[in-house]
């Protein structure tokens, strides 16, 4: 390291160093933003070297210009309308009576709206979920013709299903809002949180490992049942399950109440019309807020995520209930139509 002669010269400097070092350590304790610390921050370059900002940038800019690196059309000098203005326009139109757009990453949950309205057409591309290497095209939200010029995505990949068009808003955006997978699944089904498995494992994606069992009681029948809602994917299937579960029990109940006159040939009347009020019984449920609701108003997946227990009541009693709580106002009419 240092030789003999150097040490002689170094003596006074050594003593000078000590208070400085203490100072530095002291600074560390006190303020994090001291300039000393700033100087000592780890840099990849030589310490003390100040990259001359101005000079290099000029050099680069001239390089850029000479190589014409703005060939993609996004020339700095080119004035294109700010995305602000356009989004402005877009949002205003949106406000004319349409709902906020969705941001789906998994096409399975709800149908993504199209974005093919005239003049506001966006080069929207639906993106697949859990993608393999090299995804499909990216969705663009800022809509303006100029934007297309500087960043033209291949239109051939537009794959937006032509579903119920509720709004002219942009289509699904991958990774937005920025929420981890665990939270995404919370609303869609209250019983499952597992993330889709890695494709290379070649395992089928299992979104549910546990059933969703809720109690179901029928008026006039002392014994309740439990039904696994995960086993059904529609109200019709649930309705026929109700029939299966209670037909026998109801018949037995009627028999016993009619003083034991057993009519062995009658297996019991089918329990029908529980969804539309046409039958003798109607299906209702209690949701996670404790409210009693008619079954069938909301989309199936929403029902599954909020239902806590089911009841089969006499239709005559149900008509006494108001036609729905505040919740129903949140659901637009066309959903109700879809299910009937």
């Amino acid at each position, binding site marked *: 390291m*240092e030789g003999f002669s150097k*040490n002689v010269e170094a*003596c006074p400097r*050594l003593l000078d160093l000590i208070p400085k070092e203490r100072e530095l350590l002291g600074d560390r304790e006190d303020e994090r933003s001291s300039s000393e*610390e700033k100087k*000592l*921050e*780890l840099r*990849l370059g030589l310490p003390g070297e100040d990259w001359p*900002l101005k000079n*290099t*940038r000029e050099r*680069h800019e001239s*390089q850029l210009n000479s*190589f014409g*690196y703005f*060939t993609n059309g*996004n020339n700095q000098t080119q004035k294109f309308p*700010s*995305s*602000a203005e356009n989004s*402005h326009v*877009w*949002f205003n139109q949106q406000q004319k009576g349409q709902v*906020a757009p*969705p*941001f*789906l*990453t998994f096409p399975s949950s709800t149908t993504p709206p199209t974005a093919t309205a005239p003049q506001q057409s966006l080069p929207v591309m639906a993106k697949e*979920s859990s993608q*393999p*290497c*090299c995804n499909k095209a*990216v969705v663009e*939200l800022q809509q303006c013709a100029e*934007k297309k010029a*500087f960043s033209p*995505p291949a239109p051939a*990949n537009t794959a937006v299903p032509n579903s119920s068009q*509720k709004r002219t808003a942009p289509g699904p*955006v991958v*990774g*937005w809002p*920025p*929420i*981890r997978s*665990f*939270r*995404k699944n*919370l*609303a869609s089904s209250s019983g499952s949180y597992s*993330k889709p498995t*890695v494709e*290379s494992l070649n395992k089928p994606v299992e979104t549910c*490992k*546990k059933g969703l069992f809720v109690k179901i009681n029928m008026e006039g029948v002392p014994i309740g049942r439990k039904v696994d809602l995960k086993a059904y994917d529609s109200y019709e299937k649930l309705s026929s399950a109700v029939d299966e579960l209670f037909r026998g029990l109801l018949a037995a109940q009627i028999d016993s109440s009619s003083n034991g006159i057993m009519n062995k040939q009658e297996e019991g009347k089918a329990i029908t019309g529980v969804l539309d009020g046409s039958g003798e019984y109607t299906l209702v449920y209690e949701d*996670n807020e404790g409210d009693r609701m008619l079954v069938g108003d909301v989309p199936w997946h929403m029902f599954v995520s909020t239902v806590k227990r089911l009841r089969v009541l006499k239709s005559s009693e149900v008509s006494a209930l108001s036609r729905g709580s505040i919740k129903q106002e*949140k659901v*637009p009419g066309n*959903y109700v139509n879809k299910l009937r």
Partner: protein
Amino acid sequence: MGPNPKMRKEFFDSTRSSPFPDEVLERVLSLLKSHKDRSAVSLVCKDWYNAESWSRAHVFIGNCYSVSPEIVARRFPRVKSVTLKGKPRFSDFNLVPENWGADVHPWLVVFAAKYPFLEELRLKRMAVSDESLEFLAINFPNFKVLSLLSCDGFSTDGLAAIATHCKNLTQLDIHENGIDDKSGSWLSCFPENFTSLEVLNFANLNTDVNFDALERLVSRCKSLKVLKASKSISLEHLQRLLVCAPQLIELGTGSLMPELTACQYAQLENAFNQLKNLSTLSGLWEASAPYLPVLYPACTNLTFLNLSYAFLQSHELESLLCQCPHLRRLWVLDTVGDKGLEAVGSNCPLLEELRVFPADPFDEEVIHGVTEAGFLAVSYGCRRLHYVLYFCRQMTNAAVATIVQNCPDFTHFRLCIMNPGQPDYVTNEPMDEAFGAVVRTCTKLQRLSVSGLLTDLTFEYIGQYAKNLETLSVAFAGSSDRGMQCMLEGCPKLRKLEIRDCPFGNAALLSGLEKYESMRSLWMSACNVTMNGCRLLAREMPRLNVEVMKDDGSDDSQADKVYVYRSVVGPRRDAPPCVLTLSGL
């Protein structure tokens, strides 16, 4: 020579510049914990560099590709604990392909040779396989702490290997990973004579574990302080566990689905009553109103309440908050609504951190959730608030300005207006002034996430005022290259910049040439950057790794996803085919 020959002789013989013996220096330096301090210390002189290297027991590597395990091992010979982070943060939101990289295995192989006595490994966004977990379990006899956050590539089989072989394990923290949850049998792999566990977190697993095995494990691990159970644990189970472990400091309940008899309810209440030391409560899956009161006795000393998996209504939240006078951190779902947040403002004067997650982020029919009113209410009541993550569907500039006036100490301000490019819903103006107020008022701001309709003005403000900003997330914002230039020219402490869907092009990218080496990384996706721009960047800055991922069907010249980071080991060799490494060399 003059007087004092002895002293001078020692000086003259000394080949060191430091007046302290190495041992003293190492002892002093070993008291430094912060890796930033240690980095600074190591630059003082060669001796200090060496002393610091020898005394460093914990190494933090923020980007696994910035350095190689060999270099780490060469510099720090006596490391006991490693924290390693891999993929860019946007991989959490499906913007990065599964096979991108960040494989932990090469690190483990080097560690097995150089750090056989490694005790702690904390991984974030790394690719971890079952083989790696087994390798870890077998090759490190002193292994104590495993923490996996946002990792993927492994299954519960890997956990079984850890449980089976790690005889000295004290912490097993499996948190929000892409795990292949095959079965809960891993829990039964802990040997019957294994008693050292202090932290067990399996909250995000779904498959049923053998409850008896769990109960026995909890009973015999007398030092267990943290237990975060999964949904599969019922209330009845929970009661039995709490009876075994009244010393818990952090508890994650299982499911709160109502299914208890009155007698069982009383027992559970009693069990919670025994938890005198509880400071953190989480889980509460399927929490329902009738069962929340059972928690109350344990809430007195709570400082952190994580309700982000519980669909609570405002009145339920309020009742719970009344029980927690010392609350400092609160995570909730937006089902509590503005009214619930008013309750937060009224009941939590000591609150420092609030996170409000959306229950239904993708449901277009949703009208509930929280608005600016809720955030305002919190700011009036919780003046010590310094960390916020807020998902909402509407916001105004005026509200944000008032909020930061009430709470000027924000260090982390993450506001997500869920509709991209949405303006102030009252004035229809951009949200520029909101974030302008944030950066002007909150001088200690370290982390910022912006959203809503934003022009370049926002970034002018950020560049001008956010002098302590280290992490910045930008999406669907800005009007021109100038926006990004302002960020790069203005924020001296900027370390991580992530941008998506903004109109920033090559000029913007290249304006940061001198900046990127002082940053950990830059991410730009769905912007306006071209391959040529990236190539130029790579050529000018050889110590940066410039990686591009292209989307299917996009223009050949477009650089759809760009990831730029400094590295002392050059371009990585394990990049999959979809990652183009542009190297200046």
